């Protein structure tokens, strides 16, 4: 059992939960995730570990509650427990000092981006963070991210905050500016966003890393549900990832497999929202 130490609402449907998980806290590296199962009968959900405090024995998770399962997780009260927390899983992010890096986040992916931004800043990189969403309420973790970013940019589709349009707008300007062009780009968000970022950086040959969110069941290198095509090879996101070279990822295949349970998810609001509830909530 893993006690909920704190549970804060940061924005609509966005919770910051701190769990007591001493062993995970000690072993955790940026980029890794945990598999969470709230109670018996609930599904196993992969969630990125956003931060950890080894001394306190806690891990921090940013959870966007838009699927039925994540809704029940964030409804857990302080002092109550989550039955299963297993990890840290996946490979750690390869963090080096590139010099200038750009971190691009969209929707739920913004929560996954946070530990990367923090680790990249701590490694001495000059970080430009660009996050996007439909409208102001979907822009999450602004304070947390800007704290570790040299430049912090926002794009909303309705123009209610920052630039009007997609994250690709500000990113395009960055890539076109010889003074500011990054040596590496990290992108986490909906598949079309990651795909668009990959296409933009491919032309300039800028190293680009994406964190993938395929369907996952056990997360421990056993079931094979999280397979993705990387170049000509089949890789498993839980053991080989979740981060991959964006220029090798078969985004069309990934995107298609994510719709496998759309019929079962019809009760949820939108297919994209539901991804979080189907083992893809990292």
């Amino acid at each position: 059992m893993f006690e909920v130490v704190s549970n804060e609402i940061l924005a609509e449907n966005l919770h910051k939960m701190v769990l007591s998980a001493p062993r995970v806290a000690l072993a955790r590296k940026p980029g890794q995730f945990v598999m969470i199962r709230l109670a018996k009968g609930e599904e196993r959900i992969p969630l990125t570990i956003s931060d950890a405090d080894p001394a306190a024995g806690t891990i921090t998770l940013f959870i966007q509650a838009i699927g039925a399962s994540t809704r029940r997780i964030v409804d857990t009260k302080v002092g109550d427990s989550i039955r299963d927390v297993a990890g840290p899983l996946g490979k750690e992010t390869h963090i080096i000092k590139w010099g200038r890096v750009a971190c691009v986040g969209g929707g739920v992916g913004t929560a996954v981006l946070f530990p990367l931004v923090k680790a990249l800043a701590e490694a001495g990189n000059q970080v430009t963070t660009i996050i996007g969403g439909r409208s102001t309420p979907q822009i999450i973790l602004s304070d947390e991210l800007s704290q570790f970013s040299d430049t912090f940019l926002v794009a909303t589709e309705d123009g209610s905050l920052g630039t009007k349009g997609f994250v690709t707008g500000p990113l395009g300007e960055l890539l076109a500016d010889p003074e500011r062009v990054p040596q590496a780009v990290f992108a986490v968000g909906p598949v079309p966003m990651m795909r668009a970022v990959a296409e933009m950086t491919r032309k300039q040959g800028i190293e680009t890393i994406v964190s993938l969110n395929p369907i996952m069941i056990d997360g421990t290198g056993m079931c094979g549900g999280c397979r993705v095509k990387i170049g000509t090879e089949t890789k498993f996101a839980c053991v080989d990832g979740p981060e991959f070279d964006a220029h090798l990822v078969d985004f069309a295949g990934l995107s298609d497999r994510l719709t496998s349970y759309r019929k079962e998810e019809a009760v949820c609001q939108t297919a994209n929202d539901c991804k979080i509830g189907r083992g893809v909530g990292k």
Partner: protein
Amino acid sequence: MSNTLSAKERLAIGRAAMPELKGDERSRNFEEVNLGLGADLALSEARRCLQCKNRACVAGCPVGVSIPEFIDALACGDLPRSAQILRGDNALPAVCGRVCPQESQCEALCVRGIKGEAVAIGYLERYVADWAMNHPDQLLREKAPKVSGKSVVVVGCGPAGLTAAGELARLGHAVTIFEALHDTGGVLRYGIPEFRLPKEIIDREVALLSELGVTIECNIIIGKTLTVAQLRDEFDAVFIANGAGLPTMMNIPGENLKGVYAANEFLTRVNLMEAGRREDSSTPIIKRREVAVIGGGNTAMDCVRTARRLGAERAMIVYRRGELEMPARAEEIKHAKEEGVEFVMLTAPTAILGTEDGWVSGLNCQKMELGAPDQSGRRKPQAIAGSDFELPAGVVINAVGTGANPLLTATAPEIALNKWGNIVIDAEAATSIPGVFAGGDIVRGGATVILAMGDGKSAAAAIDGYLKKK
């Protein structure tokens, strides 16, 4: 009651048939198929045993159960003693009595099988084990072992790990099992379906181990949460039994289409996560009218019979050799047939076909014929030119095999592996690191429950020897 029948009287008794649920009834539910022998049948079956002096059957048992002895106690009506003998040799008798391939192990060597039918050792094992579970108050108390003061950590709570843990606890060592998943049993729980091995049986076997003092902690992934190096610091010996890993891909086109499952994913969804078995399970599973399972082993049978229960009207086994060459147990094949499973033999898929929107629509197959025997001794299938045909299927399950789990070994490069990533051990189950032992599928690749248990048992003896010298 005594067991003093003459050989002639014993020979006159016919082999008991296992009572089972009817095929058409059970093919729509997850109830256990084999119902178990009743007391009268068990007694008469036990009396069929000739009590041979040379105990051929024991040699066929990977864990060396004292078969004639437990059967004799049963025939004498002394169930507490029978249970004591059985449990003393086998940490998981209620599991083995259900899933062991007795017909190719103990029963294959039974003298009665030479001229007739072997004693139904598996049925009797199950009978005694189930009796023991239901009569805890009548069991003979085990003498508490002398505490050794040594600690052993077991990585993985599957058949190899549970067996080793039981053996080591009986030898007085303090045993901790670390399990990566959220529940115990390993492949017994996520792999073997409810209708073959009810989860309750695993719970009860595990509870008996806990009574012996074995500590089990779930959600700990060695290689991730803790490393082998940390385990070596904390414990006097380590037994690695973390099982099989990722599925072997078939490397044919279409493997990433929607509706293509690896056997482990399909079975884990249904068995561990209860998808399709419980109305309120929050883990989904894709159900289709036509399901094709590729492979001929027990895992393939488990998948196809599960698919049938999930509502498939046409549940098919697609196998490149013939029925005789199938590695699956005879009982599984028989049960599958009774449940309406279709066997598409001598057929190799060459591609998985899909619809425009990325869903599986079927298999492109080639007919095969059997040629000369290959290295495995089985006749090698060869494609018949021009024999391509299409087999419609809305779900395709790859049950051709699994590789080694990479999580532990990736963070312990000092452990020697073979070219497939399996851990290399010596005759004493020792790995290349002192004090670290291994067994089960992480050593063998995909094998059976009982072979993993045999590994657990012999590793426990080796670990005990190591700890005594230490």
